[in-house]
């Protein structure tokens, strides 16, 4: 049963379709992320859900209420939608204290005095800011401002929480800490969250489901592991994490696996599990077809010597080794591409050595050549 339903949502800015007829169903209590690079339409989508932008066409429904339907000339104003929102700049009002900032939505809902004070102190406790009520908002650190913004968005128990890149203004260490806190907070209050980010680590670690957007359209919607390990489109594959791409030719087919002769890297043979074939339709794959095998660096092991009889080994050139304290970083060149592999132990290798890469079968995906 979908809670927030977006149908054919469409919005242009000038000549550009910022959001191009997207459909989404978000469940109650779900942590849903819109992921993409800047200008992909994720923020515009979020703002249309919040009522800060009017869609050109399409509909947005929350539960059994229609929030926006330009076709029916229906638009619920943002102040009537009962959604909390955290802005990228936090947008704390500088002329108010922490307490006044958080109590503002309560005041507008007629909650005053002791009731309001109780709710404010509860929610400040929830975000870990008890005792800072009387501070002026500009006198807080970035992380604290972030928490106030979160408290202000949560204090009136909204139906949906909208987060517009809330972590992007924090420094790296604080961002990691806030990320963990955000997740545990969402699990405690069990609120539906729509989260907009361009950071794949935030998206993968926080979300129940991720929608990856590009040029105003949805590329793929799915659970983090799904989109990461089973990317539906080449864009998603290349956008999330890093990949080695090896061109080859299908040499044999069976129910279990597809055998691929890889070209240019020592004529190795790879066996890709049948389940990892992307877009298997229209006679793909077939023997003799040109294909691409994709694999993530973390699914690749570095090994110094050839073990006879083992498949899925390819030859590569080691370009450089760097010691990073807790790990070693190996830059390897496979075919025409350079990628970085991490290893916790030193392999006693030097730049310029020929190395063998052991590709894990479950990590490989098979794509048509032109993708």
């Amino acid at each position: 049963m979908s809670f927030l339903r977006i149908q054919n949502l469409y919005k242009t800015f000038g000549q550009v379709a910022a959001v191009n007829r997207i459909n989404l169903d978000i469940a109650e209590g779900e942590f849903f992320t819109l992921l993409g690079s800047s200008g992909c339409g994720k923020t515009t989508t979020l703002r249309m859900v919040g009522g800060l932008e009017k869609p050109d066409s399409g509909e947005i429904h929350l539960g059994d209420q229609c929030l926006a339907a330009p076709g029916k000339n229906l638009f619920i104003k943002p102040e009537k939608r009962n959604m909390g929102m955290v802005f990228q700049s936090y947008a704390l009002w500088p002329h108010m204290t922490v307490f006044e900032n958080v109590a503002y939505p309560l005041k507008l809902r007629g909650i005053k005095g002791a009731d309001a004070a109780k709710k404010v102190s509860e929610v400040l406790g929830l975000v870990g800011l008890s005792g800072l009520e009387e501070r002026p908002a500009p006198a807080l650190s970035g992380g604290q401002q972030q928490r106030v913004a979160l408290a202000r968005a949560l204090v009136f128990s909204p139906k949906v929480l909208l987060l517009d890149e809330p972590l992007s203004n924090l420094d790296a260490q604080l961002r990691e800490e806030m990320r963990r806190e955000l997740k545990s907070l969402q699990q405690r209050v069990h609120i539906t969250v729509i989260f907009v980010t361009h950071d794949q680590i935030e998206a993968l670690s926080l979300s129940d489901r991720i929608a990856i957007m590009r040029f105003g359209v949805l590329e793929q919607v799915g659970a983090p592991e799904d989109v990461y390990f089973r990317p539906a489109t080449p864009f998603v594959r290349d956008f999330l994490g890093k990949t080695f791409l090896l061109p080859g030719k299908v040499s044999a087919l069976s129910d279990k696996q597809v055998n691929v002769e890889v070209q240019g890297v020592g004529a190795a043979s790879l066996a890709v599990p049948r389940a990892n074939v992307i877009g298997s339709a229209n006679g793909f794959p077939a023997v003799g077809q040109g294909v691409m095998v994709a694999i993530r660096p973390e699914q690749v092991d570095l090994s110094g010597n050839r073990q006879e009889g083992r498949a899925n080994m390819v030859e590569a050139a080691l370009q450089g080794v760097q010691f990073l304290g807790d790990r070693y970083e190996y830059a390897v060149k496979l075919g025409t591409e350079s990628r970085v592999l991490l290893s916790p132990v030193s392999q006693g290798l030097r730049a310029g050595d020929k190395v063998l890469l052991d590709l894990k079968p479950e990590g490989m995906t098979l794509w048509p050549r032109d993708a």
Partner: protein
Amino acid sequence: MKTMAKTETANIEVAPRSWFPPLDGGTAIMTVLIAFMGFYVLYPLTLIVINSFNTATIAEPEVYGLDAWRKAFAEPGIWRSLWNSVKIGIVLQLIALPSGIFISWLLARTNIYGANLFEFGFWISFILPNLATTFGWMLLLDPSTGLVNSWLRPLGINFDIYSFSGIIWAHLMANGISTKVMLMTPAFRRMDASMEEASRMSGASPFTTLLRITIPAMTPVIIVVFLLSVIRIFSSFETELLLGVPWGFYVYATKIVDLARQEPPLVNQAAALGSVILIFLIAFIPIQRRLIARRQFTTVTGQFKPKIIELGIWRWPATILVGFIVFLLDVVPILSVFGGSFMTRFGFFNLPKTWTIEYWKMALSDPRILQGLQNTLIIAFSAAIVGALFFSLVGYILVRTKYPGRGILDSICWLPSAIPGVLSGLGLLWMFLGTPFFRPFYGTLFLLVIASVLGGITLSTQILKANFVQLGNELEEASRMSGAGFWRTYFKVVFPLMAQTMVLVAVLKFMFAAQQTSSIILLATSETRTLSLLALDQVAAGYREVASITVIFIMLLTLGVALVARSFGLKVGIRAD
């Protein structure tokens, strides 16, 4: 390794060249500057206070006593003029500040039509001299001959501009509203739109958001604008002279001029009245400075293009309202002044000969107008050049150097903004007539130049200082590292980089000098009269049609110059931050 060691020794051998001129050099510069500026700014004011205890008139041996104070404050007219100033200030701000805030909000944050055009309209109104707008409205709202009144009369209304409400109206039409819109619109525009959006998401309507979030978040700017207006209360002069004096209504500034120009002159009483305000203002300046210097709320993110608030059905009414205000502020007074110069009798359309160019013929051959134009140009150009060159050096020293005494110099530069023009005029009058050394300068244009430069010190130093801060240190440091000294760096690097700003300061000073009256009215003679003073005299003598031609000349020298400068990309105007 060897070569490196060599270089080090070489370095040690060279005498370390200090960053700025040697300390005693810096101290010398500062001593001269502070002494000069102090004498220029403070000495005339001190003379006012001293001579309020003097019962002899200017240039006579001093006789000290409390007589002037006693007489001044025994006369109810003096108290009344003070109260009138305050009353005008309060009523004017009660109307102008809320209107200014509302219009700025409409222009900067809503989808009103023609926002840029209207903002330009308010800029024009700001540039138009008070004298021109007041005169224009005077022609329209004269109780017996006013054109607008002749339209209103059938409705049973006759709005007399020679009244308290008439003075308020003239102020609103002159700079009361436009200055505020000019200062606040950019500030409203820079505000982070997500603060308003956060309020909407919290459940507030656009109007609640305006009252509870937008305006309170803008309070630092609003306070600055308000203080600037408060401090101008006692400076207001032309409007009250034209519209108040004819019916015996005096404010602070017109009263001082009246006392000083009486026969026999009551300069000592004028000084007593001046001292009262001087003491009040000097107490007020530190407060003003602190409030203005205090860091603003950081309301700028520059992240998202500021979201415009949709006015819905109010879009057209708001556009028409602001458009009408701009029409009243710009078009009406300009048309009125031009109309006045071409009509046989202004407002009389049923005369046998309604239109005439007689007055233009008369004016263009009138030696007084040509003399006035020449005087105005000399004064305005001198003020512009001296202002830009000299105060760029002052600004540079204040921002860039570590010389001792910068605080004192800065304070001296802040003072003139608070001193009503009439007072500095009175002080200079005393200085030039009372000091034998200076006495020969009385009656020369030099005296008026001195007064004109004085009036703009604060504005010039503030603009130049802001620019030096913005410019950053490194360009100069690079010049110093390349081996150039202080003066070479100043003239070869700083000066060219600042050229545009200095032209801007020069243009502003030119405009202000060309339209001022209050600071020079006590210093000018019939030979050194400027166009503005001439216009006041012409109105007082009843030659309104000729006066409108003089006013047109003044408008050309102010608005005309400003428009030309603007077309070259100069941001002619003032800012609140």
